């Protein structure tokens, strides 16, 4: 499972890095960005789904296809 923030949609609500700090971090203006290449370790899958389900702009995208 991989995850990324759609930079076009993100408006900096900060839900992703609040709910999944092991997967996301704020940039200098508070917009969210995924850490590293966005690979989600198995123990972070729940947090990844929370980040997706709580983004008001639907800017957090789960890439299920990456690992099948």
């Amino acid at each position, binding site marked *: 499972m991989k995850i990324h923030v759609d930079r076009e949609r993100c*408006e*900096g*609500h*900060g*839900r992703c*890095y*609040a709910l999944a700090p092991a997967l996301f971090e*704020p*940039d*200098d*203006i*508070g917009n969210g960005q995924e850490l590293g290449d966005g690979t989600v370790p198995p123990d972070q899958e729940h947090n990844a789904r*929370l980040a997706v*389900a*709580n*983004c*008001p*702009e*639907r800017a957090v995208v789960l890439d299920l296809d990456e690992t099948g």
Partner: protein
Amino acid sequence: MGHHPPVDDWATDFDHTDDVWAANPYPIWDELREKCPIAHTERYGGVWLPTSHEDVAEIAYDTEHFTSRSVLVTEFRPPMELAPQGIAPPISSDPPFHKNARRLLLPAFAPQAIDKIEQFTRNYCEELIESMRGRDVVDAAVEYSQHIPVRVIAQMLGFPEEDADRFRGFVQHVLEGVSLPMEERAEGMMVLFEYLQAQVQDHIDNPRDDLTSFLLNAEMDGERLDMGHVGGTIALLLLAGIDTTWSAIGASIWHLAKTPADRERLVREPALLPTAIEELLRAYAPVTMARLVKDDVEWKGCPMKAEEWVLLPFPAANRDPEMFENPDEVVIDREENRHAAFGLGIHRCAGSHLARMELRVALEEWLRAFPSFSLADPDAVAWSGGQVRGPRTLPIRIA
């Protein structure tokens, strides 16, 4: 603020400053969402009111048909020439001006910057709580909630701490006095303007490490900001941060005071607080924004005329059953919560990280000091109407 005739039909004659709306707007929005999802009133020169999450979101995203030249519904429309900067950038700005005006402000309100004022905020909350100890009943709106955002923004702007009561006066005049006669409003704006001018002059003479000096030195597209921009942004920071956060803190304390199960659970499980705060923000979102219609347009069948207002009731969007399961139920461990309390799109509340910190710290300290509290007199609780809704009188029994 009952300066207008009472409302007899919410679909065709609504008034968001009406006392019925202030006391409990949710049934009004629920009924409209079912029967007339985009209501209209002739008041204020014409206002539209979408009530579904989908419509509120679409208008918030649509900067082509709707302008932010003013975001506060009154009888008065600011002059067209003010666009695209508007009177209080960046909230009043449209693209493309908006983007850089907002960008220069955001680092000061990013989580990394807000972390640095958390301890200051906490100390201040403790101070307020100390002054309440030993009493049976306190007003949690007047003696606690309202002071916190004022003290914090005064600190950030580098304004004198002793002027706090004056700021609150300005804010209430501007935001809650929307149905006052124009002359009275203009007078109040003038007092605010003169106050800000004196503060800015003091910062020009004595530059220091705060937001006001930062704005005076900031550059946009290689040039210093003009004084209208600096003053407008300072006015925005002062106005936007105060009674919004005050409302959110007050509404949260009100909910916990009347819902012992939620209060007890948060005392037992403090780690749940951040999740609970998002739910309290969803259920009691204080802020309704507004836009002006740019040109005549037929929007989802509604004949919207240029210069009519459109209210964006994010609190109504947050109660839309299409978007949220059991929207009228406060579920403090709600896991899926895409609420829009801080707006949507390019005008997302720039102070949202500050507001969340203040709300969390205010509730942490309150719950720690008063693990058992309740409404002293439910009928005495009074809510503000208009575009920022929250308790203004909130008697709480703390012992």
